[in-house]
């Protein structure tokens, strides 16, 4: 999943593990239903207090529709199924409604439901980010939209960091869905496969466009992500994102390229994000131009590297040939010198000098000079 795990050369499976953000909402647990029923009983109280507020994002809207269906029908089954149809994050509610069961297995189920509730509060809090920034006030306002008291924000120990990380995870999972859709279309032959450079460009643009509603406050979010206790989580999300994009771009490399490609895309993504927060051109056109240029740079660098590698190999081969030739000549010369020395030491009657020996050597071997 992260940079630290190079792929196995022999595995045919997908190189990366799906990011946890996608896995968590769809985790199904049969034991959850009884507590969810208890939860829906609690929810019946909440729907009297929730204001007639229509937030624009899909998850909060379906949550409200879910409660309003509840109030009209007083039937948990229909409401939970209606909620499930609309909201992918609440899939587990579509199981058949059971009667109120014994809650002996409560402990594990509670935590799952608490996390779902926290996810719902954070999703509702995103509406208030343009007004309050990425802060506890936004989370408190989000909780109040759901009918909960502002004291429930105490559940978020990391405060604003929780909100930002939740948003990042949500964007990553949306991007993965879009890329998977496109991949499916290509597999079915309904669309042409794009070139790598175009694919990367579109993926990064789609991902960065998700920041546009919050672009005013995005520098605050970036600074929150750089706080030391948030760095491990933000790096994990970034590496998951880059890995997903390269996977859907068709990268199946199993050598050093796996690292270099991801490092390059990380660099492109981060620099483009920085350009985007300072961009004031219409529809961020400057940012997309910058993105184009950076991707072009990387592609050029890749082709240059390939050319350099080919040239280098040719040069190396030439040098090797010359070196072999030289070494053969040298070894012959050394051999004759030894003969001369040996004869001088042990057979004193031979009055040849060193130069005569060399001349003899040259004549005898008739070298290729």
């Amino acid at each position, binding site marked *: 999943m992260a940079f630290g795990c190079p792929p196995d050369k022999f595995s045919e499976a997908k190189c990366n593990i799906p990011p946890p953000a996608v896995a968590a909402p769809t985790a199904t647990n049969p034991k959850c239903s009884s507590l969810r029923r*208890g*939860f829906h*009983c*609690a929810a019946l*109280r*909440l729907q009297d*207090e929730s204001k007639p507020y229509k937030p624009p994002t899909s998850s909060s809207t379906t949550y409200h529709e879910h409660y309003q269906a509840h109030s009209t029908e007083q039937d948990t089954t229909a409401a939970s199924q209606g909620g499930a149809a609309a909201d992918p994050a609440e899939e587990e509610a579509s199981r058949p409604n059971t009667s*109120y069961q*014994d*809650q002996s297995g409560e402990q594990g189920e*509670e935590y799952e439901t*608490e996390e779902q*509730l926290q996810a719902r509060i954070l999703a509702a809090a995103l509406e208030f980010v343009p007004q309050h920034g990425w802060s*506890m*006030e936004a989370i*408190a306002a989000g*909780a109040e939209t*759901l*009918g*909960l*008291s*502002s*004291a*429930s*924000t*105490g*559940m978020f120990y990391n405060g604003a960091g929780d909100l930002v990380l939740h948003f990042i995870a949500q964007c990553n999972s949306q991007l993965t869905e879009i890329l998977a859709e496109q991949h499916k279309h290509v597999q079915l032959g309904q669309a042409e496969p794009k070139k790598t450079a175009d694919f990367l460009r579109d993926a990064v643009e789609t991902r960065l466009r998700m920041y546009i509603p919050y672009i005013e406050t995005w520098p605050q979010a970036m600074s929150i992500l750089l706080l030391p206790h948030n760095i491990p989580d933000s790096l994990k999300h970034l590496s998951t994102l880059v890995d997903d994009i390269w996977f859907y771009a068709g990268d199946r490399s199993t050598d050093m390229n796996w690292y270099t490609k991801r490092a390059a895309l990380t660099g492109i993504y981060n620099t483009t994000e920085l350009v985007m927060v300072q961009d004031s051109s219409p529809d961020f056109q400057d940012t997309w131009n910058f993105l184009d240029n950076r991707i072009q740079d990387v592609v050029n660098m890749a082709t240059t590297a390939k050319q350099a590698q080919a040239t280098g190999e040719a040069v190396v081969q030439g040098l090797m040939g010359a070196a072999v030739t030289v070494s053969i000549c040298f070894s012959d010369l050394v051999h004759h010198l030894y003969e001369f020395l040996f004869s001088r030491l042990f057979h004193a009657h031979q009055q040849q000098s060193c130069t005569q020996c060399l001349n003899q050597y040259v004549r005898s071997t008739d070298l290729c000079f």
Partner: protein
Amino acid sequence: MAASVRLLVRRVTRLSHGHVTVCPSGPSGPSGRCCWAPSSCRCFSDDRNTHFGFETVPEAEKAKRVYKVFENVAQNYDVMNDAMSLGIHRLWKDTLLHVMNPQPGARLLDVAGGTGDIAFRFLEYIRSQRERQRRHVARSMQALSWKDISDVYAAREGGEDGPRESRAVVCDINKEMLKVGKQKADSMDMSAGLSWVVGDAEELPFDDEQFDIYTVAFGIRNVTHIDQALQEALRVLKPGGRFMCLEFSKVRDPVLARLYDTYSFKIIPVLGEVIAGDWKSYQYLVESIRRFPDQEEFKRMIEDTGFYCVRYHNLTGGVVALHSGYKL
């Protein structure tokens, strides 16, 4: 209704404890929302005993004796707190507020609040939060054009009546403690947003779902039926509301435990005698600390009542524990 069914099921499965603390109050068990006459309840439980420090007393008597203890100590309560804890109790209460992190507009109920320490800190905290918000708004308005500023003023006048005001209600069974608290508030000029109500933690005189935060600091061990107090807390909290309890608890580390025991039993009653002229009340205090359930047991009791996300922090090595739960 579901909460009470769940509670009764759990009581059946837990028949005995090491402590005598949790005493089921028989057939007239908690029926959730309706108020039953106190006299009928008490006559069922007359034959049950509970602890009063290391003594065993009938339940009906415990409330009276606790009342008398606090009536005696009310005048010197704050001074004695400072002397006994060497001023550390202020840090404990400040930690409670920091963990609580109340948002502006929150309503607090401080039960067994007595002299109002928590309520005062709460109002201070909210006030400084509001100041910070106002400064933030003012800073963001500095670079605006004249047109934008006039728009903001127009919106402010014509629109909503501003953010909700935070309120704190201090509830205590003991009138003397409340009197001392009111005097403190008047002298510190902090009466705005404060109410003082006489009430029993086991039967709060409030409607359902009124408060965002319920706190009880160093008071719940004096309650005869702790689970009833917890159920009342669940009742008066809004959905999403938070229950917080600051209470003396068990020290884990053996060395510290020995020191703490020596200090508690040898020094505190002596201080009580010297400063307040009342040995027995402070003997009761340290004994009641020993009889209170430990951190894990109390956490289980809170979860049984129906709170979620229950956690505790140990302060000063376990001398004090801060339990927190949410009504979700």
